[in-house]
């Protein structure tokens, strides 16, 4: 029972994790991208279209990442160079993405797509507990196992990662030391967009293998909560995503078992936890890295 919930939770966690991981980089650089939902929706649809036309889900994934980067580019330019309010631009992206994907996907609603199926790892899949828990999934899940250490290294052990964290904390000081604040921020936002695109594609061509209008169903917003919940750290984002995913998997099972507890009240838990974590982080750790990136949401305006 527990293994099944955790294994199901892992799959449900993939889109949350990918989107939130990208958002960690964007927010660490000081740019809030509230528009993940819009990016994921558009990418989910493009993945279906390209997979259908090319016959290869791999091209679908690539196209979805491209779309994510493209939409993030709009958000990045508007927020970084034009100093627009990041929350407002993000809302615009959500609204636009919802509309565009609904209109473009009108004739594809409900049609199956030949997506990416499960690919259990030979031998390892038969290990007790670990096998069914971690190694009987689709290739994207295995890709995530690589992504966690990779992004950790990128953020904490490379020059670019240091620059991202620096421009998110104090862009003026970073600029003095020769960091090109705006370009660093843009690259972080683009990375975030690409990962959000992959998250959307995962939903449509791997997880459910069909397109439905508004199928992201708030996951882009949940990913934002997750970033706060995980205090802007890639590794914690993974475990947070798994927890969020497990809660939704558990909820389905409880519902099926006819349990008394309301699934709606249960679904509130992640959000309540997120607020609690946010309050705690701001209250107890105001000046530590574990808290909010200090220049999050503020445009960098060069003075000369």
């Amino acid at each position: 029972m527990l293994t099944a919930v955790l294994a199901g939770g892992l799959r449900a966690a993939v889109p949350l994790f990918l989107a939130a991981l990208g958002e960690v980089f964007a927010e660490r650089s000081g740019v809030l991208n509230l528009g993940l939902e819009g990016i994921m929706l558009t990418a989910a649809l493009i993945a279906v279209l390209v997979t259908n036309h090319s016959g290869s889900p791999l091209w679908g994934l690539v196209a979805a990442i491209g779309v994510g980067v493209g939409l993030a580019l709009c958000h990045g330019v508007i927020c970084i160079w034009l100093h627009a309010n990041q929350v407002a631009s993000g809302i615009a992206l959500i609204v636009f993405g919802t509309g565009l994907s609904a209109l473009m996907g009108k004739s594809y609603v409900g049609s199956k797509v030949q997506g990416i199926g499960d690919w259990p790892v030979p031998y390892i899949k038969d290990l007790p507990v670990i096998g069914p828990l971690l190694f009987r999934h689709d290739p994207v899940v295995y890709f995530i196992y690589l992504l966690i250490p990779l992004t950790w290294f990128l953020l904490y052990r490379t020059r670019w990662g240091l620059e991202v964290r620096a421009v998110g904390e104090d862009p003026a000081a970073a600029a003095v030391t020769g960091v090109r604040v705006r370009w660093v921020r843009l690259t972080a936002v683009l990375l975030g967009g690409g990962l959000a695109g992959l998250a959307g594609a995962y939903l449509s061509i791997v997880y459910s293998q069909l397109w439905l209008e508004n199928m992201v169903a708030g996951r882009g917003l949940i990913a934002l909560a997750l970033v706060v919940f995980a205090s802007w750290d890639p590794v914690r984002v993974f475990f947070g995503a798994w927890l969020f995913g497990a809660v939704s998997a558990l909820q389905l099972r409880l519902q099926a078992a006819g349990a008394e507890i309301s699934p709606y009240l249960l679904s509130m838990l992640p959000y309540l936890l997120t607020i609690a974590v946010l309050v705690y982080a701001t209250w107890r750790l105001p000046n530590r890295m574990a808290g909010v990136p200090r220049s999050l949401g503020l445009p960098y305006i060069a003075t000369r």
Partner: protein
Amino acid sequence: MHTVVLTLTSVVFSILASSLILLPLGTNPLLVFETIFLESFGDFYGFSETVVKATPILFCGLAVAIPAWVGLMNIGAEGQLHVGAAAAAGIALFFPNLSTWILIPTMLGAAMVAGGLWGGIAGVLKACLGVNEVMVTLMGNFIAVLYVDHLVHGPWKDPASYGWPQTASFTTAAILPHLGVSRVHLGLLIGLVAAVLLYAVKRWTTLGLSMRIIHSSPETAAYAGINYRRYFIWTMIVGGGLAALAGAVEISAIQGRLRSGISTDYGYTGILVSWMAGHHPLSVIIIALFIGGLLAGGDNLQIELGLPFATVNIVLGLMFFFLLIGGYFFSRKLRQGISGES
């Protein structure tokens, strides 16, 4: 004046740009915009539906605008709307025998109190601990929507509803009076009065002056002896209360019961409306009417052209983008880039 030019420019650009998106998809943009605008503003029935849609948007636009006066972003109008709807429905369901004159004011009052408290949480957290109000109000949306879902699927579900997630119908005493034969209701007048009152407060009282000072710099305000924390809390309370009224009047006058899906993202639309209006309460009225027309047009697109309702979101989203882009070029001349002001 700047706001008017900027808003009109972004409307024109968004229509042009969305035409460029519609054309290659095999949709005739002229037909689309004709369907949207001709029916929403062209005849009496269409216009009355526009006003019906504009009513909750007006409240939500004001709910976003007031905290924006002191520099806060209220993303939580959607949740505050749901909390208000739940409170009003609770009164209507549990005191069905009261007369209209008592019942309706009680429903609206309960909604305002509940929504005010809900919004006030974010205000208190921001004022006392510095917690980011964007995140708190965003989380609040999920919690409130889920709570309404819980109510209509569980304890308040009408046993006679054949599995539909909704409460029993309200008694006629709980239905807000309609104006004439249309579906336009008293909520519109309440919203208009609220907008005018808020304009008066902002324009002619010291409260309005204090809020302008806080917006430019809370530190300066503190030096001037203004307790900005109190303003943070109260603007969020008033904003939350107004968004709650949107929910209360919508379920009372339009739905006649509480059910899931009472709002087609009115709360998020309110953010766009408030920004397009430059957070000015009287402009919010006009913009709410315009956006209400677009949304009513979305229904017509669905019925007459078989296009998804969300097609209008393309126009809305682009409008917001152009507003933000244009805001940069307008404000650059005025002052060195303030992020929010348009």
